[in-house]
Protein backbone atom coordinates (compact mmCIF):
# COMPACT_ATOMS: atom_id res chain seq x y z
CA UNK A 1 0.00 0.00 0.00
CA UNK A 2 1.24 3.42 -0.81
CA UNK A 3 -0.01 6.07 1.51
CA UNK A 4 -1.70 9.11 0.08
CA UNK A 5 -1.45 11.25 3.19
CA UNK A 6 1.02 13.71 1.76
CA UNK A 7 0.90 14.99 -1.79
CA UNK A 8 4.53 16.01 -1.60
CA UNK A 9 6.03 12.58 -1.09
CA UNK A 10 9.39 12.31 0.62
CA UNK A 11 12.51 12.14 -1.54
CA UNK A 12 13.41 8.58 -2.60
CA UNK A 13 17.01 7.32 -2.79
CA UNK A 14 19.18 5.30 -5.21
CA UNK A 15 17.37 3.84 -8.24
CA UNK A 16 14.13 5.12 -6.87
CA UNK A 17 15.56 8.63 -6.92
CA UNK A 18 16.57 8.17 -10.54
CA UNK A 19 13.01 7.03 -11.39
CA UNK A 20 11.46 9.78 -9.34
CA UNK A 21 13.29 12.42 -11.35
CA UNK A 22 11.46 11.20 -14.43
CA UNK A 23 8.07 11.19 -12.75
CA UNK A 24 6.23 14.26 -13.95
CA UNK A 25 2.84 13.52 -12.51
CA UNK A 26 1.54 11.74 -9.47
CA UNK A 27 -2.04 10.55 -9.51
CA UNK A 28 -3.81 9.90 -6.23
CA UNK A 29 -6.67 7.44 -6.51
CA UNK A 30 -8.37 7.50 -3.19
CA UNK A 31 -11.00 5.40 -1.54
CA UNK A 32 -14.44 6.96 -1.93
CA UNK A 33 -14.97 7.68 1.75
CA UNK A 34 -18.05 9.79 1.10
CA UNK A 35 -19.78 6.90 -0.68
CA UNK A 36 -18.86 4.60 2.18
CA UNK A 37 -20.47 7.02 4.61
CA UNK A 38 -23.53 7.76 2.46
CA UNK A 39 -24.46 4.14 1.88
CA UNK A 40 -25.48 2.30 -1.27
CA UNK A 41 -27.61 5.17 -2.49
CA UNK A 42 -29.64 5.09 -5.63
CA UNK A 43 -30.44 1.56 -6.64
CA UNK A 44 -32.15 2.62 -9.85
CA UNK A 45 -31.95 5.69 -12.04
CA UNK A 46 -35.44 6.78 -10.97
CA UNK A 47 -34.67 6.74 -7.25
CA UNK A 48 -34.51 10.01 -5.39
CA UNK A 49 -30.98 10.99 -4.30
CA UNK A 50 -32.14 11.51 -0.73
CA UNK A 51 -35.37 10.51 1.00
CA UNK A 52 -38.33 12.40 -0.44
CA UNK A 53 -39.17 13.70 3.05
CA UNK A 54 -35.70 15.24 3.30
CA UNK A 55 -36.12 16.97 -0.04
CA UNK A 56 -39.56 18.24 0.95
CA UNK A 57 -38.14 19.56 4.20
CA UNK A 58 -35.35 21.39 2.33
CA UNK A 59 -37.85 22.93 -0.08
CA UNK A 60 -40.05 24.01 2.78
CA UNK A 61 -37.09 25.60 4.59
CA UNK A 62 -36.15 27.40 1.40
CA UNK A 63 -39.71 28.71 1.10
CA UNK A 64 -39.67 29.94 4.68
CA UNK A 65 -36.41 31.83 4.04
CA UNK A 66 -37.92 33.34 0.91
CA UNK A 67 -40.81 34.72 2.92
CA UNK A 68 -38.40 36.35 5.39
CA UNK A 69 -36.00 37.70 2.76
CA UNK A 70 -37.69 41.10 2.11
CA UNK A 71 -37.57 41.87 5.83
CA UNK A 72 -33.88 41.28 6.32
CA UNK A 73 -32.68 42.63 2.97
CA UNK A 74 -34.16 46.04 3.83
CA UNK A 75 -31.18 46.71 6.10
CA UNK A 76 -28.86 46.06 3.14
CA UNK A 77 -30.83 48.46 0.95
CA UNK A 78 -30.62 51.07 3.71
CA UNK A 79 -26.85 50.57 3.77
CA UNK A 80 -26.78 51.11 0.00
CA UNK A 81 -28.76 54.34 0.47
CA UNK A 82 -26.25 55.58 3.05
CA UNK A 83 -23.36 54.79 0.72
CA UNK A 84 -25.10 56.69 -2.06
CA UNK A 85 -25.42 59.71 0.24
CA UNK A 86 -21.73 59.51 1.15
CA UNK A 87 -20.78 59.13 -2.51
CA UNK A 88 -22.87 62.25 -3.29
CA UNK A 89 -21.29 64.24 -0.46
CA UNK A 90 -17.74 63.38 -1.54
CA UNK A 91 -15.64 63.64 -4.67
CA UNK A 92 -12.70 61.97 -6.34
CA UNK A 93 -11.08 59.02 -4.64
CA UNK A 94 -13.36 59.20 -1.60
CA UNK A 95 -16.40 58.95 -3.86
CA UNK A 96 -14.90 56.04 -5.75
CA UNK A 97 -14.37 54.20 -2.46
CA UNK A 98 -18.11 54.32 -1.84
CA UNK A 99 -18.81 53.12 -5.36
CA UNK A 100 -16.53 50.14 -4.74
CA UNK A 101 -18.30 49.36 -1.47
CA UNK A 102 -21.66 49.59 -3.22
CA UNK A 103 -20.30 47.20 -5.89
CA UNK A 104 -19.45 44.66 -3.25
CA UNK A 105 -22.91 44.88 -1.65
CA UNK A 106 -24.45 44.59 -5.12
CA UNK A 107 -22.46 41.40 -5.68
CA UNK A 108 -23.99 39.96 -2.50
CA UNK A 109 -27.48 40.97 -3.63
CA UNK A 110 -26.89 39.32 -6.98
CA UNK A 111 -26.18 36.03 -5.21
CA UNK A 112 -29.00 36.33 -2.71
CA UNK A 113 -31.93 37.56 -4.80
CA UNK A 114 -32.48 34.52 -7.00
CA UNK A 115 -31.69 32.13 -4.16
CA UNK A 116 -34.50 33.65 -2.11
CA UNK A 117 -37.00 33.79 -4.98
CA UNK A 118 -36.35 37.39 -6.05
CA UNK A 119 -34.47 37.05 -9.36
CA UNK A 120 -35.07 40.72 -10.19
CA UNK A 121 -32.81 41.59 -7.23
CA UNK A 122 -30.15 39.39 -8.84
CA UNK A 123 -30.62 41.17 -12.19
CA UNK A 124 -30.34 44.64 -10.67
CA UNK A 125 -27.55 43.55 -8.30
CA UNK A 126 -25.53 42.16 -11.21
CA UNK A 127 -26.05 45.32 -13.26
CA UNK A 128 -25.03 47.52 -10.32
CA UNK A 129 -22.01 45.35 -9.50
CA UNK A 130 -20.76 45.47 -13.10
CA UNK A 131 -21.32 49.22 -13.21
CA UNK A 132 -19.34 49.73 -9.99
CA UNK A 133 -16.45 47.61 -11.27
CA UNK A 134 -15.91 49.88 -14.28
CA UNK A 135 -12.60 51.73 -14.26
CA UNK A 136 -14.27 55.07 -14.90
CA UNK A 137 -16.94 54.70 -12.25
CA UNK A 138 -17.55 57.86 -10.25
CA UNK A 139 -15.86 60.23 -12.68
CA UNK A 140 -19.15 61.83 -13.56
CA UNK A 141 -21.96 63.00 -11.29
CA UNK A 142 -24.33 61.28 -13.70
CA UNK A 143 -23.06 58.04 -12.25
CA UNK A 144 -24.76 58.93 -8.97
CA UNK A 145 -28.07 58.98 -10.85
CA UNK A 146 -27.40 55.53 -12.28
CA UNK A 147 -26.60 54.28 -8.83
CA UNK A 148 -29.77 55.83 -7.41
CA UNK A 149 -31.87 54.26 -10.18
CA UNK A 150 -30.56 50.80 -9.26
CA UNK A 151 -31.33 51.32 -5.58
CA UNK A 152 -34.81 52.65 -6.40
CA UNK A 153 -35.81 49.65 -8.53
CA UNK A 154 -34.48 47.24 -5.92
CA UNK A 155 -36.45 49.05 -3.21
CA UNK A 156 -39.57 48.78 -5.36
CA UNK A 157 -39.06 45.01 -5.74
CA UNK A 158 -38.74 44.52 -2.00
CA UNK A 159 -41.46 46.98 -0.99
CA UNK A 160 -44.03 45.27 -3.22
CA UNK A 161 -42.54 41.79 -2.71
CA UNK A 162 -42.19 41.23 -6.46
CA UNK A 163 -40.97 37.66 -6.59
CA UNK A 164 -40.20 35.65 -9.73
CA UNK A 165 -39.70 37.62 -12.94
CA UNK A 166 -42.33 40.12 -11.79
CA UNK A 167 -44.38 39.91 -15.00
CA UNK A 168 -45.38 43.29 -16.41
CA UNK A 169 -44.17 45.16 -13.33
CA UNK A 170 -40.81 43.42 -13.59
CA UNK A 171 -40.46 44.40 -17.23
CA UNK A 172 -41.45 47.94 -16.37
CA UNK A 173 -38.81 48.19 -13.65
CA UNK A 174 -36.15 46.91 -16.05
CA UNK A 175 -37.29 49.52 -18.58
CA UNK A 176 -37.14 52.28 -15.93
CA UNK A 177 -33.59 51.30 -15.05
CA UNK A 178 -32.58 51.05 -18.69
CA UNK A 179 -33.96 54.50 -19.35
CA UNK A 180 -32.03 55.97 -16.37
CA UNK A 181 -28.83 54.32 -17.62
CA UNK A 182 -29.44 55.65 -21.13
CA UNK A 183 -30.11 59.16 -19.85
CA UNK A 184 -27.04 59.29 -17.64
CA UNK A 185 -24.60 57.07 -19.45
CA UNK A 186 -21.25 58.60 -20.12
CA UNK A 187 -20.37 56.10 -22.82
CA UNK A 188 -22.35 54.35 -25.56
CA UNK A 189 -21.14 51.00 -24.22
CA UNK A 190 -23.35 51.40 -21.17
CA UNK A 191 -26.39 52.15 -23.31
CA UNK A 192 -25.71 49.06 -25.39
CA UNK A 193 -25.51 46.78 -22.38
CA UNK A 194 -28.73 47.19 -20.41
CA UNK A 195 -29.61 44.62 -17.75
CA UNK A 196 -31.30 41.59 -19.35
CA UNK A 197 -34.53 40.14 -17.92
CA UNK A 198 -34.08 37.48 -15.26
CA UNK A 199 -33.14 34.02 -16.43
CA UNK A 200 -35.53 31.19 -15.67
CA UNK A 201 -34.88 30.26 -12.07
CA UNK A 202 -33.81 26.67 -11.49
CA UNK A 203 -36.99 24.91 -10.50
CA UNK A 204 -37.29 23.30 -7.12
CA UNK A 205 -38.52 19.92 -8.14
CA UNK A 206 -38.91 16.61 -6.42
CA UNK A 207 -38.21 14.76 -9.64
CA UNK A 208 -34.92 12.96 -10.05
CA UNK A 209 -33.26 12.87 -13.47
CA UNK A 210 -34.31 9.75 -15.36
CA UNK A 211 -30.74 9.00 -16.35
CA UNK A 212 -27.48 9.54 -14.60
CA UNK A 213 -25.97 12.93 -15.42
CA UNK A 214 -23.20 12.86 -17.97
CA UNK A 215 -19.66 13.68 -16.98
CA UNK A 216 -18.77 17.27 -17.44
Amino acid at each position, binding site marked *: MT*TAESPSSSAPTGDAAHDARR*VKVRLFRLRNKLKEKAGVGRAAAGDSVVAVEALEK*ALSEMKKSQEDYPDWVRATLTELGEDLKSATDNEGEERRKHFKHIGSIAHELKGQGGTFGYPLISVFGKSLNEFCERNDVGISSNHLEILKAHIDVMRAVIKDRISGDGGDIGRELIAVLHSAIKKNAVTQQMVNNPPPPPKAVA*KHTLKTPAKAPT*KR
Partner: protein
Amino acid sequence: MANYNFSMFTVLVVEDNRYMRSMLRTLLYALGVGNVVTAGDGGEAIELLRKVKENPTEAGIGAVDMVFSNWQMEPVDGTMLLKWVRRSKESPDRFVPFIIVSGYADFQRVSVCRDLGVTEFLAKPYSVDNLLGRLTALVERPRQFVLIESYFGPDRRRRPSPTPLERRVMKESEMEIIYDDR
Protein backbone atom coordinates in the same frame (compact mmCIF):
# COMPACT_ATOMS: atom_id res chain seq x y z
CA MET B 1 -36.13 2.40 -3.19
CA ALA B 2 -32.72 3.37 -1.85
CA ASN B 3 -31.39 6.81 -1.05
CA TYR B 4 -28.18 8.27 0.19
CA ASN B 5 -27.89 9.01 3.86
CA PHE B 6 -25.71 12.00 4.67
CA SER B 7 -26.04 11.68 8.45
CA MET B 8 -22.39 10.66 8.83
CA PHE B 9 -21.16 13.78 7.00
CA THR B 10 -19.56 16.77 8.71
CA VAL B 11 -19.74 19.81 6.46
CA LEU B 12 -17.94 23.10 6.99
CA VAL B 13 -19.83 26.15 5.69
CA VAL B 14 -17.78 29.33 5.31
CA GLU B 15 -19.88 32.39 4.55
CA ASP B 16 -19.68 35.95 5.83
CA ASN B 17 -23.33 36.82 5.26
CA ARG B 18 -25.17 35.41 8.23
CA TYR B 19 -28.45 34.90 6.35
CA MET B 20 -26.81 33.01 3.53
CA ARG B 21 -24.78 31.04 6.07
CA SER B 22 -27.85 30.21 8.11
CA MET B 23 -29.80 29.17 5.01
CA LEU B 24 -27.09 26.88 3.69
CA ARG B 25 -26.72 25.29 7.11
CA THR B 26 -30.50 24.80 7.37
CA LEU B 27 -30.71 23.28 3.89
CA LEU B 28 -27.84 20.87 4.56
CA TYR B 29 -29.46 19.73 7.80
CA ALA B 30 -32.80 19.34 6.01
CA LEU B 31 -31.14 17.17 3.37
CA GLY B 32 -29.93 14.90 6.16
CA VAL B 33 -26.35 16.07 6.79
CA GLY B 34 -25.41 15.00 10.32
CA ASN B 35 -23.17 17.88 11.36
CA VAL B 36 -22.74 21.36 9.91
CA VAL B 37 -20.08 23.64 11.36
CA THR B 38 -19.74 27.24 10.27
CA ALA B 39 -17.15 29.99 9.98
CA GLY B 40 -17.62 33.66 9.13
CA ASP B 41 -14.60 33.95 6.83
CA GLY B 42 -11.58 32.02 5.59
CA GLY B 43 -9.48 32.98 8.62
CA GLU B 44 -12.01 31.55 11.06
CA ALA B 45 -12.24 28.42 8.93
CA ILE B 46 -8.44 27.99 9.01
CA GLU B 47 -8.44 28.29 12.80
CA LEU B 48 -11.16 25.66 13.03
CA LEU B 49 -9.41 23.30 10.60
CA ARG B 50 -6.11 23.71 12.45
CA LYS B 51 -7.88 22.75 15.65
CA VAL B 52 -9.41 19.71 13.92
CA LYS B 53 -5.91 18.57 13.01
CA GLU B 54 -4.24 19.36 16.33
CA ASN B 55 -6.94 18.38 18.76
CA PRO B 56 -10.07 16.84 17.23
CA THR B 57 -11.55 16.17 20.66
CA GLU B 58 -11.33 19.81 21.64
CA ALA B 59 -12.64 20.84 18.21
CA GLY B 60 -15.52 18.42 18.65
CA ILE B 61 -15.03 17.23 15.08
CA GLY B 62 -13.22 14.09 14.01
CA ALA B 63 -12.87 15.17 10.41
CA VAL B 64 -14.43 17.62 7.96
CA ASP B 65 -15.86 15.72 4.98
CA MET B 66 -16.39 18.70 2.71
CA VAL B 67 -16.15 22.49 2.66
CA PHE B 68 -18.68 24.88 1.13
CA SER B 69 -17.07 28.31 0.97
CA ASN B 70 -18.17 31.69 -0.29
CA TRP B 71 -15.56 33.46 -2.44
CA GLN B 72 -15.79 37.13 -1.51
CA MET B 73 -15.09 37.52 2.20
CA GLU B 74 -12.84 39.65 4.35
CA PRO B 75 -10.14 39.45 5.51
CA VAL B 76 -9.51 35.92 4.19
CA ASP B 77 -11.57 35.03 1.12
CA GLY B 78 -12.60 31.66 -0.28
CA THR B 79 -9.72 31.28 -2.73
CA MET B 80 -7.17 32.00 -0.01
CA LEU B 81 -8.82 29.35 2.15
CA LEU B 82 -8.80 26.90 -0.76
CA LYS B 83 -5.09 27.55 -1.33
CA TRP B 84 -4.40 26.92 2.36
CA VAL B 85 -6.44 23.70 2.43
CA ARG B 86 -4.63 22.29 -0.62
CA ARG B 87 -1.10 23.48 0.09
CA SER B 88 -0.53 24.08 3.77
CA LYS B 89 1.18 21.45 5.87
CA GLU B 90 -1.17 22.46 8.65
CA SER B 91 -4.22 21.48 6.59
CA PRO B 92 -5.96 18.47 8.15
CA ASP B 93 -6.87 17.00 4.75
CA ARG B 94 -5.45 18.33 1.52
CA PHE B 95 -7.82 16.09 -0.43
CA VAL B 96 -11.03 17.33 1.17
CA PRO B 97 -13.79 18.13 -1.36
CA PHE B 98 -14.00 21.91 -1.62
CA ILE B 99 -16.96 23.71 -3.16
CA ILE B 100 -16.80 27.40 -3.92
CA VAL B 101 -20.20 29.07 -3.66
CA SER B 102 -20.17 32.36 -5.50
CA GLY B 103 -21.97 34.86 -7.66
CA TYR B 104 -18.74 35.12 -9.67
CA ALA B 105 -19.63 32.41 -12.15
CA ASP B 106 -17.91 33.63 -15.33
CA PHE B 107 -15.40 31.36 -17.04
CA GLN B 108 -12.36 33.38 -16.06
CA ARG B 109 -13.18 33.35 -12.37
CA VAL B 110 -14.26 29.73 -12.32
CA SER B 111 -10.90 28.92 -13.96
CA VAL B 112 -9.07 30.68 -11.13
CA CYS B 113 -10.79 28.35 -8.63
CA ARG B 114 -10.18 25.32 -10.84
CA ASP B 115 -6.45 26.04 -10.95
CA LEU B 116 -6.34 26.36 -7.17
CA GLY B 117 -7.83 22.88 -6.82
CA VAL B 118 -11.55 23.43 -6.33
CA THR B 119 -13.71 20.31 -6.51
CA GLU B 120 -17.04 21.84 -7.53
CA PHE B 121 -18.46 25.29 -8.13
CA LEU B 122 -21.93 26.29 -6.95
CA ALA B 123 -23.10 29.49 -8.58
CA LYS B 124 -25.27 31.90 -6.64
CA PRO B 125 -28.19 32.21 -6.86
CA TYR B 126 -28.76 28.51 -6.29
CA SER B 127 -31.70 26.21 -5.62
CA VAL B 128 -32.14 23.09 -3.48
CA ASP B 129 -31.67 21.05 -6.66
CA ASN B 130 -28.37 22.79 -7.44
CA LEU B 131 -27.12 22.13 -3.91
CA LEU B 132 -28.18 18.51 -3.94
CA GLY B 133 -26.58 18.12 -7.39
CA ARG B 134 -23.20 19.19 -6.00
CA LEU B 135 -23.52 16.87 -2.99
CA THR B 136 -24.39 13.98 -5.30
CA ALA B 137 -21.49 14.74 -7.62
CA LEU B 138 -19.06 14.55 -4.69
CA VAL B 139 -20.42 11.17 -3.67
CA GLU B 140 -20.92 9.62 -7.10
CA ARG B 141 -18.21 11.14 -9.23
CA PRO B 142 -15.05 11.71 -7.19
CA ARG B 143 -12.00 12.57 -9.26
CA GLN B 144 -8.44 11.41 -8.87
CA PHE B 145 -6.02 14.00 -7.49
CA VAL B 146 -3.14 15.22 -9.59
CA LEU B 147 0.21 16.48 -8.36
CA ILE B 148 2.44 18.20 -10.86
CA GLU B 149 4.96 20.96 -10.41
CA SER B 150 2.40 23.70 -10.89
CA TYR B 151 -0.79 22.11 -9.59
CA PHE B 152 -2.24 19.98 -6.87
CA GLY B 153 -5.95 19.20 -6.79
CA PRO B 154 -8.71 17.16 -8.40
CA ASP B 155 -8.07 16.16 -12.01
CA ARG B 156 -9.04 19.17 -14.11
CA ARG B 157 -9.63 17.11 -17.22
CA ARG B 158 -13.31 16.41 -17.08
CA ARG B 159 -13.89 16.34 -20.83
CA PRO B 160 -12.36 14.51 -23.76
CA SER B 161 -9.65 16.40 -25.63
CA PRO B 162 -11.01 19.77 -26.80
CA THR B 163 -8.95 19.54 -30.00
CA PRO B 164 -9.09 16.81 -32.71
CA LEU B 165 -5.48 15.96 -31.95
CA GLU B 166 -5.02 14.47 -28.48
CA ARG B 167 -1.98 16.29 -27.12
CA ARG B 168 -2.46 15.15 -23.57
CA VAL B 169 -0.03 12.28 -23.74
CA MET B 170 2.01 11.04 -20.83
CA LYS B 171 4.46 8.15 -20.83
CA GLU B 172 3.88 5.53 -18.17
CA SER B 173 7.37 6.12 -16.80
CA GLU B 174 6.50 9.76 -16.18
CA MET B 175 3.49 8.84 -14.10
CA GLU B 176 3.14 7.43 -10.63
CA ILE B 177 -0.21 6.19 -9.42
CA ILE B 178 -0.78 6.20 -5.69
CA TYR B 179 -3.66 4.35 -4.05
CA ASP B 180 -4.77 4.43 -0.45
CA ASP B 181 -6.86 1.26 -0.49
CA ARG B 182 -4.61 -1.50 -1.70
